[in-house]
């Protein structure tokens, strides 16, 4: 009898989590639907268009072909744009991490009364919005802008310095707009690290710098990696900032896509670049998950 009870209990126990998992899957349905209609479907359409061989709004002149892929990847200009996009985005991710880490440490550890204000300030890029931010930097950096006025007013320069329409302006804009996305994951991971761990390290003979380098820093790298991934992808896909703050020498992939679609009126070529951008983003995501998987450990006891 006891074995029968045990068996039925085991059956109940094994059924229950699965039932729960199914119910939890239902919670994901609205997002899954949205992703299907708003992301997967357009992606399939873009993929289709990229295989066309016509131009303009009639991409399919004579059936499917990979001619546009061949043409695009033979173009040195396209390669330059791809490399430039990756290098700039990676640099922005690294620079942003260096910039955000001390701030995140301050926000996570400080009991200062300025902490609330600092939090508020670090959220302003999100609150202002990307378009306002871009216009703001145009005004700041322009030939008749604030910075040039100050430089000339102080007599440091005699004539306006060209700050805008170059890689510096693009980088400033991208760092600014993505700063919060770097800050938050780092701050959240740092806040989750028990401050007692550094004390334990100190009691074992580690100096404050060494305790930080051997305990807090390695434990916070997961947050840094998450932030860098978000910022990298955001920079790769940025459009408004490189379009308005950049020049002809700083064309990034989204701008190149836009050029092909509207200026050159070549939809398949634009679609090829869009697929390339998506593939690059997914590749970086895959590499990241290989080394820092946020899901890892979630199922462990």
């Amino acid at each position, binding site marked *: 009898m006891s074995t029968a009870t045990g068996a039925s209990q085991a059956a109940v126990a094994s059924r229950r989590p699965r039932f729960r998992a199914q119910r939890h899957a239902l919670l994901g349905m609205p997002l899954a639907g949205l992703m299907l209609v708003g992301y997967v479907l357009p992606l399939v359409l873009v993929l289709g268009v990229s295989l066309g061989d016509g131009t303009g709004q009639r991409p399919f002149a004579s059936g499917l072909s990979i001619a546009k892929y061949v043409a695009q990847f033979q173009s040195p200009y396209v390669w330059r744009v791809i490399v430039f996009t990756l290098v700039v985005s990676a640099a922005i991710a690294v620079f942003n991490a260096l910039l955000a880490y001390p701030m995140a440490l301050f926000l996570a550890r400080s009991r200062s009364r300025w902490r609330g204000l600092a939090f508020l300030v670090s959220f302003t890029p999100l609150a202002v919005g990307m378009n306002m931010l871009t216009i703001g930097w145009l005004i700041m950096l322009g030939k008749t802008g604030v910075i040039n006025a100050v430089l000339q007013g102080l007599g440091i320069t005699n004539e306006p310095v060209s700050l805008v329409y170059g890689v510096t302006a693009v980088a400033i804009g991208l760092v600014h707009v993505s700063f919060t996305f770097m800050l938050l994951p780092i701050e959240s991971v740092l806040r989750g690290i028990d401050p007692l761990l550094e004390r334990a*390290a100190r009691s*074992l003979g580690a100096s404050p710098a060494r305790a930080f380098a051997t305990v807090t820093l390695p434990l916070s790298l997961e947050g840094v990696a998450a932030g860098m991934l978000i910022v990298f992808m955001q920079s790769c896909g940025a459009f408004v900032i490189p379009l308005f703050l950049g020049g002809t020498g700083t064309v990034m992939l989204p701008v190149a896509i836009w050029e092909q679609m509207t200026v050159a009126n070549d939809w398949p070529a634009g679609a090829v670049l869009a697929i390339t951008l998506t593939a690059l983003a997914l590749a970086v995501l895959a590499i990241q998950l290989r080394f820092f998987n946020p899901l890892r450990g979630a199922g*462990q006891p």
Partner: protein
Amino acid sequence: MNVPGLQLARVSKIFGSSVAVDRLDLDIAEGEFISLLGPSGCGKTTTLMMVAGFEDVSEGSIRIRGRHVENLAPEHRRIGMMFQAYALFPHMNVAANVGYGLKMRGVAKVEREARVKRALAMVHMEAFADRSPRSLSGGQQQRIALARALVVEPDILLLDEPFSALDRELREELQHEVRRLQQELGITTVFVTHDQEEALLMSDRVAVMCAGRVEQCAAPAELYARPATPFVARFIGRGTLTEAAVLEAGANHCRLSCLGREVQVPRPLPVAAQKTANVFFRPEDATLRTSPEGAGAGLSFEARLEAVYFHGASSLAELAIIPSGERAFVDCTALSRHAALTTGETFTVDVPADRIHLVPLKP
């Protein structure tokens, strides 16, 4: 000359306008296990953190093995520490955790590995060297934390309530383990706890703290038998504390008027020439009876039974003294075996005169 393992001299800690630790004096012998016991906010943890170096000393001096440390950073004090929340490094395996302190001290890899192995064997965890701390139970994690603290051969071991997160059985096992290793290695140890049972069980001496001061620092048996202040009398174990008027104070005895009776106590007043004294006795030193007639030579009074606490091996009666209503605790193991103890009924409590302890009044 015998240098104390730890010496606190007039150590104070002042936070803004509040005094957390007030001119604390404490001498701890080399190899001694001392507990800082007290309610939360009594300054015991602050004291430990000042010894560790995580809190600055506002005034006074701290010496570990004769070496002044009050201006040294924690990493230079040669301490070993255990925390309530284990504080193992989650990104390192067990061996790396234990070896961390040796690495910080620049011990070469080969020697480090040998010492880590020995330390793990000491706490019976040698099979877990490659495991992640997260995969271990609380008790196992605390064993690793103990090995990590001891492997560096510190001058002093500091324990910050290391057992309070563990359940009863594990706690007892680890208390035994820590005490055994502490005695084997002869390491001076300061143990902070709010659990008096564990303090009495483990320590050579217990310092009972209240409001930033040490009320009494004595061996557990002394502390239990002869509390030196009313606070200690109330804080340690169960007991009955009541005031008495001094009728006559002799060199070897005193005569008191207590709870409506005259009692001759065969010991002098703790503080001479006081008009009142604190009479104190333990539950096991008093007896309970139902009949009001006849009385022994000691203290005798009537009280109303409020509750009976059954502890298995013994039973404890809580009573309200008539008419004052003060609490009295009396062992009723024998009586409860052959009589029904009904709450609300009146009983007579007898305390032999030689079992009465006189607690000094607050100076």
